């Protein structure tokens, strides 16, 4: 029987990989998912307001302390969201505060991802005693009551954007480690790894070039969920007065609103905007994260 030299052109969907069945970019996939679409819109709107907003909206020069009349003023044409207890423009604070909330959330997530994915890759790839030691450490962090720990650490280490990010980042990694490890454990048993080993690839190369790209969609989906959690943690910390007093985030605004008695004085314009900002941002990231998880993670596909 002679060999058929013509190329055949059937395209089969991926069988058991974690790749989406066709190669569409993730944002398209998320956009196609109802939950993801809502989340994406929320996130983009907040991002646009917070990042671009301060550059386009005109603000009156800081007018605090001019007179008793200027404090806790309700919204008006000059101050779209009124003024705070020192007479500062709340709208401006909301936009700038959002930047701080996002900044802390992103840097904490970056730390959590590097630690979480790194440990997960090492633990899953080497297995054996290294896995055992790392997993016991991970379990320890997993069962720690995170918020009290964060509060204690923040109180101990001081109040600055850097320290808040570090503390949140170093307490949010264990679930990522667990997820990545379990996927790597299954990947390392594939003939792919044996083939690469037979090429003389070092462990580092095997992990980076062959295993990491296969788990990166999972890391990405997890990243968005951790980001939502980190923003919420920062808000909690700041509300309790453990935020950076110089760089005011949404949580810090709520803290000052609470301590200045804005709530009992009915100054809703001071309390609601940062609160709503936190809710929308966290909800948006959570929706995108869950949507991504559903698209990229075969285990949870159709489970909800």
């Amino acid at each position, binding site marked *: *029987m*002679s*060999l*058929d*030299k013509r*190329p*055949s052109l*059937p*395209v*089969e*969907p*991926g*069988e*058991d*990989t974690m*790749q989406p069945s066709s*190669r569409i970019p993730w944002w398209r996939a998320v956009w196609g998912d109802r939950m993801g679409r809502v989340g994406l819109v929320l996130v983009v709107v907040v991002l646009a307001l917070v990042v671009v907003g301060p550059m386009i909206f005109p603000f009156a020069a800081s007018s605090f302390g001019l007179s008793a009349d200027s404090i806790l003023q309700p919204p008006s044409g000059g101050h779209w969201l009124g003024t705070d207890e020192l007479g500062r423009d709340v709208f401006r604070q909301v936009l700038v505060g959002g930047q701080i909330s996002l900044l802390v959330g992103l840097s904490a997530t970056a730390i959590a991802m590097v630690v979480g994915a790194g440990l997960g890759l090492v633990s899953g790839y080497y297995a054996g005693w290294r896995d055992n030691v790392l997993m016991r450490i991970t379990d320890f962090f997993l069962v720690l009551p995170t918020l009290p720990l964060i509060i204690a650490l923040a109180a101990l280490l001081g109040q600055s954007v850097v320290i808040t990010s570090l503390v949140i980042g170093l307490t949010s990694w264990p679930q990522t480690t667990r997820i990545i490890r379990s996927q790597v454990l299954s990947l390392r048993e*594939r*003939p*792919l790894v*044996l*083939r*690469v*080993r*037979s*090429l*003389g*690839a070092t462990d580092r190369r095997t992990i980076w070039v*062959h295993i990491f*790209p*296969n788990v990166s969609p999972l890391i990405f989906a997890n990243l968005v969920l951790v980001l939502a959690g980190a923003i919420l943690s920062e808000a909690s910390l700041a509300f309790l007065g453990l935020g950076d007093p110089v760089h005011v985030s949404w949580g810090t605004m709520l803290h000052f609103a609470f301590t200045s008695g804005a709530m009992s004085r009915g100054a809703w314009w001071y309390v609601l905007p940062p609160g709503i900002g936190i809710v929308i941002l966290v909800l948006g990231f959570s929706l995108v994260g869950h949507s991504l998880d559903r698209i990229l993670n075969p285990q949870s596909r159709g489970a909800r």
Partner: protein
Amino acid sequence: MTLLEIKDLCVDYTVGADSLRAVDQVSISVAAGEAVGIAGESGCGKTTLGLAVPGLLPANATPTGSVQLLGEEMIGRSEDDLNELRWTKVSFIFQGAMNALNPVHRIDRQILEPIRTHEPNTASAAAKERVSQLLELVGVSPSRARSFPHEFSGGMRQRVMIAMALACRPSLLIADEPTTALDVISQSQILSLLGDLQREQQLGLLLISHDLAAIRRTCDRVVVMYAGVVVETGPTAVILGRGTEKRTAAHPYTQALIKAHPDLAGERVLAQALPGHPPDLSIPIKGCRFYDRCSVRKSICHEVAPTLRPVAGTAHLAACHLVGGDVT
């Protein structure tokens, strides 16, 4: 010239405190340009044997004995020394092409990997040209070089695996179930491809398969393994029959394997399944390993393990007490 000489190879797996001998005193040789098939059920040590040659056994396996590839001893070599021989002298076609290819890299990049590793001085353009030639050789259009594995059918992925295995011009090719999980048409094409390449390039081929038809088509000699030992070996035409030659398998296990496969050309008889399972190797077996499932067993078979003895001439050997006339 002898390409591969396996002598008294044993492989022990350690699982916890237990030890299990998956390959026991196996001796096989492959000459340059010769195709040898290894047949047997699942779990009889075929894959372990195949992995032992390029030194790719898992960490809990200990090989003893001797595996000589082109005169170089493979057992006890360091990982670095093994790397020099892998792909350039011996390469491996892995079971299940989808899982042996990285789903996130394009196939040209994956075929380039062994070339880059073993011939780092190859110019980029020359290496790319080689990839095109290799793809052409295995019947995949070079225009598909930039595809991802999931864009290929199962048969094409297997062709890519073969192209990869040939990338550094090895003298010996070990193919572990290269046609499993493929449809019959692709199976047939892959076997033709392997056979053609083997003849054209004078490659030594060690084809590991449970499929007797695949071995009959491709291999000059066949080695039948059962529970870690060789039970019968000889020319394929003699044991499995080919063309006008009648098959004369001597060992009851080989005969049972043949009966379990339907034969298109021969008489119309129903394929007969062989009942039972291979024995548990963690328990020592005194007599013949096939005793429990053998239909012609004698009392001596339970007591004394048979050794390989000539059936007819020196090429055809079988390990059975009923062969050679000591027991009737």
